[in-house]
């Protein structure tokens, strides 16, 4: 009888061990537990000018300023390394899918881009605060190449931002000549 119980207990323990092994352990933390090191390390000088019919309030302006800074932190990281995963919280699904088309693994950077300055003119702000179109003018970029030579350029963009999930995300862009 004693052997039967020991056998049964061993069987149960073995079963529990096997069950434990089959449970999938997700290595990805939920977004609210993640620390976004790339965004945290980025601090661009962003000036917001509101030209829209509907005006965002102070809190909404603070939010878009912070998120726009984070968007560019991840756009630079994407440019430098082709890492599309790190910035997925700041890209809409369409933007992500389009850029995933060119994903062939991350690459060693030959040029490092940094954005230094933005003048974000908000052109349209939806009354529910979920859509924002803007012209980002006089954007100053520095490109540090392989020989550590630094190039500074100025660019202008039209951007479409959508508020999805907990933050603003980039959905579309046009480089203005």
């Amino acid at each position, binding site marked *: 009888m004693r052997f039967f119980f020991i056998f049964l207990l061993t069987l149960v323990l073995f079963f529990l061990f096997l069950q434990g092994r089959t449970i999938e352990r997700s290595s990805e933390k939920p977004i609210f537990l993640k620390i976004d090191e790339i965004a945290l390390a980025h601090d661009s000088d962003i000036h917001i000018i509101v030209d829209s019919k509907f005006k965002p309030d102070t809190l909404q302006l603070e939010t878009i300023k912070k998120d726009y800074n984070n968007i560019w932190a991840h*756009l630079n990281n994407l*440019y430098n390394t082709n890492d599309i995963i790190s910035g997925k919280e700041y890209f809409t699904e369409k933007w992500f899918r389009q850029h995933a088309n*060119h994903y062939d693994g991350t690459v060693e950077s030959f040029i490092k881009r940094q954005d230094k300055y933005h003048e974000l003119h908000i*052109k349209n702000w939806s009354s529910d605060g979920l859509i924002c179109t803007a012209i980002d003018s006089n954007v100053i970029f520095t490109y540090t190449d*392989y020989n550590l030579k630094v190039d500074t350029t100025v660019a202008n963009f039209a951007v479409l931002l959508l508020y999805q999930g907990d933050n603003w995300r980039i*959905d579309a*862009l046009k*480089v203005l000549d």
Partner: protein
Amino acid sequence: MRREILYIELLIALLFISSCKPEIKERPLMIKNLDTLYLPLKPLEFEAKGTDWDIRLYSMTQPIPLEISYIEKGFYLTQKNNFGVIEGPGHFCLISGENYFKYKVYLKNADKPLVKEIDYRSPKTVNTDSSLTHQKILISVDEWQNIYSVNKGNNLFEENIIKLPVTAGLYRAQFDLPLSSYYVQPGSCTSIPINSKFVKDRQIFNITAGPLKDQYGNLVADGTIVKFIYNDGTYTHSMESALLRGYASIEIPSIELKEYTLFAKIDDTESISINLRPL
């Protein structure tokens, strides 16, 4: 003799050091010197020496994967896929050992892209009691997420305030775009028609309020609570019922052939009073 050996050793060392110097390569020559590259990239030929080149093509947003094929006089590059990019200035970088060369190019999509106009509406829900106006933001975006001018005009974005239909329902500004959906919710009722019927077999009064409509004739939203207040001459009682398809009803048992006066109420809107007689 010993000194001569030392000189020979020094000479060998010098030769060795000079042979270790990085090889300086000439800047590869783009055969068709192009300022603008159209993607998907057609084979792009370079005249260059060596077969150890590492390449990067940077669009405005990310590196584009390329393939390199070596030929007798140099190499040619092809794009690994057939997808488009965010158009704009880009860089071509070529590296071989310590040799680094950069080419400034402008990237454009070769094929005419599929441009779609997106009609964003806000707010997503409007009630006929309040404003029936809507904010409409129009944006044209192609399949590679480049922004285009709206209606092929000069404006990149367009915004209008438009009047909505007064009929309640779920609408889509664009049939194939769920994001453009909005809902016109019926407003509050303007009057409460009320009817009663005595059901002799069961000795009950069956009272029905409805159809309840808003100022535009839309049936008031399901679930709206209608309060029925009735008095038997001594006591006042009340019952509640939720609207379903514009109607709400209750049943009041007739006790000792009592008569009641009854009216229905939703917020500030009241029906007329009716008498309930067990006839």
